[in-house]
Structure formats: structure tokens, C-alpha cells
């Protein structure tokens, strides 16, 4: 993985995932390790994403690295019409690693081609967000003690949600069972069902929460966004169907954990927050360790 950009979850093998997760556990045990001393990491956010940026900057700071960059395109030379290529080629002169978020799909892959330093994709439009997937994997491993043979429920917008697509691909290495819960027109796309069929992975689709949730090891919640609905009445009808409430967790398994990539709006009722099965804030914390592990392994730094 040394000197190799991380652009897509498809860039990493099962062994690569496991190496990163192993390293993340070491950072969690000992988060402050100044191995980035003297190194500069550029965080280029061509669109704002406060949560992801702060998580990366926290990871870099704990490693003792310096941060340069911008927090949205409006405050950068991009506003003056500079091409992505020129921005990347310039910044690559100033930094040892580039972390970038960009609304255009495929922009991170392109940046990795023109950059002389490795690039970490922190989200390229609806395409990929691989560091989110690695922190999801880390959260699952940490709470379940294994990634193998788990029953994973994915809830909400399964059509446009890139986090669920990437997690599905990553988990496919570990013999999972999937249960998909979504409105009809936000169902998991056929290409992913074909993928699961080819791999011989079991999956079930439901239009609302079912009693089967009592079999879940992981419930991965996502936001059903109002903008996805052309008919506002349709949104009003379905918006309450995909809300997780504390009383729904009564008969669920002890090892069940609720994950959510955040930010949450209404899809997880606040009465779930105090339930020990709620894990989304710890999940966000895990993001820092996962990102420390990713940065350290790309820069080839030993701990």
C-alpha cells in the first residue's frame, strides 16, 4: 500500500483491509504518535464537509503532521477558474500526501494520475468514500469481534447511498447475509444484487422494518433525503417508515450495534442514543483511528 493512492474501495484487497484494521487498533491503543513529524498533508475540500475534514485533521494532528489546504472551493484558486490538474500539480509540490474531497465523480482518480504524491479520496460526488468504508469495517470488527458470517441490515436510501454500496462490496469478502430495508424507488440497484448473486451471498429485501431485525448483528442506517423525492406527498408518506425507535430494539440480539455514517437527521430517534446498542458516535471516533492507519500505511511509516 506504500505510496499507493486510496481512491476506491476496489483498490484494496481483503488482506489490505485487514492490515489497515489491525493498524487502526494499534492507533486506538496509542493515538498520539508523532510519526508524521516534518511531513505536510494537504486537505483540499473542493466542497465543504466539516465532519470528514475534522476527522482527517484530527488524525493528522495526532500523528504530528502539518496541515495545509482549503475548506471549500470558494476560498481557493478554483474559484478563479483554475483546472483541477493545475491545482493538484501545484499542491503536490508543497505536500507529502493529498486528501481531497470533490463533487465531481472520478476527480480523485484523475488527481492521483497527475499528482506526484499519493492521494486519499475523501469523497468524489456519489462515487466513492473509501475511508468511510474502512472506519465502518473497523467499527463492525470492534463491536462483533469478527467480520465473518454477520447479518447486516441496511436501511434507508440504498439507491444513492454510496456508503452502503462500498460497505456491501467490502463486506462481501466475509460471507455476510444482507437485509435491505428501503422505499420501493430507493431500493438497492440491480448491479449490486447481481454482484451478490455472483458471489453467492444471501440477501433479502423489505419495504419496512420487520421482526427479522431481531436477527441483526449490525443495523446500518442512512438518511432518506427529501431531495430524492419528486413528489413531496410521497416523502411525507415514507419518511416515518424508516425511523428507528428505541422500542424496536427490545428483542434484538445483545451484540447488535446501530451504525450511521452521520450526520443524522430524524432517521434515528434520539431515544435510541442512550441505548448501549447505539454506536454511531463511537463509530465517528473510530474514523480518526482508521484514518491514522490509512495515512501511516500509505506513507510507509512504522509504528
Amino acid at each position: 500500500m506504500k505510496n499507493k493512492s486510496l481512491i476506491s474501495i476496489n483498490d484494496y484487497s481483503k488482506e489490505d483491509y485487514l492490515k489497515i484494521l489491525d493498524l487502526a487498533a494499534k492507533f486506538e491503543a496509542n493515538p498520539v504518535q508523532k510519526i508524521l513529524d516534518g511531513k505536510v498533508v494537504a486537505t483540499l475540500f473542493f466542497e465543504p464537509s466539516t465532519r470528514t475534514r475534522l476527522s482527517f485533521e484530527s488524525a493528522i494532528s495526532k500523528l504530528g503532521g502539518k496541515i495545509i489546504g482549503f475548506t471549500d472551493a470558494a476560498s481557493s484558486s478554483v474559484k478563479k477558474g483554475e483546472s483541477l490538474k493545475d491545482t493538484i500539480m501545484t499542491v503536490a509540490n508543497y505536500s507529502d500526501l493529498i486528501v481531497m474531497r470533490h463533487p465531481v465523480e472520478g476527480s480523485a482518480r484523475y488527481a492521483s494520475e497527475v499528482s506526484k504524491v499519493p492521494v486519499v479520496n475523501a469523497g468524489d460526488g456519489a462515487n466513492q468514500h473509501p475511508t468511510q468504508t474502512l472506519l465502518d469495517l473497523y467499527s463492525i470488527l470492534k463491536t462483533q469481534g469478527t467480520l465473518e458470517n454477520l447479518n447486516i441490515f441496511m436501511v434507508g436510501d440504498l439507491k444513492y447511498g454510496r456508503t452502503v454500496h462500498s460497505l456491501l462490496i467490502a463486506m462481501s469478502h466475509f460471507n455476510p447475509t444482507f437485509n435491505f430495508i428501503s422505499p420501493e424507488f430507493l431500493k438497492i440497484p440491480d448491479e449490486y444484487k447481481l454482484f451478490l448473486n455472483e458471489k453467492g451471498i444471501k440477501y433479502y429485501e423489505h419495504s419496512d422494518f420487520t421482526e427479522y431485525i431481531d436477527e441483526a448483528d449490525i443495523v446500518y442506517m442512512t438518511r432518506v433525503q427529501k431531495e430524492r423525492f419528486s413528489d413531496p406527498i410521497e416523502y411525507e408518506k415514507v419518511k416515518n417508515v424508516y425511523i428507528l425507535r428505541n422500542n424496536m430494539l427490545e428483542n434484538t440480539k445483545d451484540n447488535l450495534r446501530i451504525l450511521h455514517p452521520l450526520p443524522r437527521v430524524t432517521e434515528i430517534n434520539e431515544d435510541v442514543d442512550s441505548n448501549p446498542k447505539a454506536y454511531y458516535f463511537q463509530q465517528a471516533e473510530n474514523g480518526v483511528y482508521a484514518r491514522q492507519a490509512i495515512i501511516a500505511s500509505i506513507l510507509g511509516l512504522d509504528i
Partner: protein
Amino acid sequence: MTKETKELRVSAIKNGTAIDHIPADSLFNVINILGLDKIDNTITFGTNLDSQTQGKKAIIKISERYFEDAEINKISLVAPNAKLNIIKDYEVVDKKVIEIPDTFDKIVKCVNPKCVTNVEAVSTKFTVVDKNELKLKCYYCEKITSKGNIEVV
């Protein structure tokens, strides 16, 4: 139809390549993909010729020009059944069929309007993920461009 009358429709060449069984409506795409509009060789073509197997077809003959497989296979996008005759001294010395390559560079437009190749000055690159259905995966945005919406740039 005898061989002679067929030859008369598109005059014979001494040395070069004849590309037959091009769907008539793909003629200009083939010219475009092979860059035939940018070379100095003598080129003759006939189109809207009757074909026993595919309706109206076109033939292109290019003098003094031979193609690498990687180059000629690009036309599988628009003329998957095309056949090549390699001609030396008025004789067909070799025949080739078109094969779908594993990758397509530069010639196909990505179907995704939000793809970097449609936003910045970036040439497209695709890997062929399904040769039967002709499904191309964009190297950049990872979306699939398939048979029905392939557009040659």
C-alpha cells in the same frame, strides 16, 4: 452476387486493407475511430450496399495501410461484425475478424454527466466488464456505459 460485381462497386486496391460488413449507419463512426479523415492514403468507400446478412452495409478500402489488432479492434464498438481483408498485390493474403478488446481509451464518452471526463479536459478510459452485452466501466467514475448509450467522441 458474383465476386466481380461486388469488386466493381468499390474499386480494387493493390496493397492495403479492406474493411467489409460495416453497418451503413456506422461508416462515419468507423472513419472517425480509425482517424481515416486525418491520413493521406488513398481511401475508397461504398455505402448502402445490399448485404445478405445485415441490411445495408458499407465497405472501406485503404491503400498502403495495415492496422494493429489493438487499433482495428476499436471499431467493434460500432461494427462488431466487420471483417478485414489484408491485400498485397491485389490478392487477399489474410483475413481477420474484429474482437472486442479489454479496454477502450479516448473514443467513448462516459454516460455519467457528473464524471470528471465530462467536466475537465480528461480523456476517457474504460475496461470492458461484459463483452456479450458490451458493458464498459469508466476508470474514473466507475459507472457503466452500456451498448444502448455508447457515444463515440
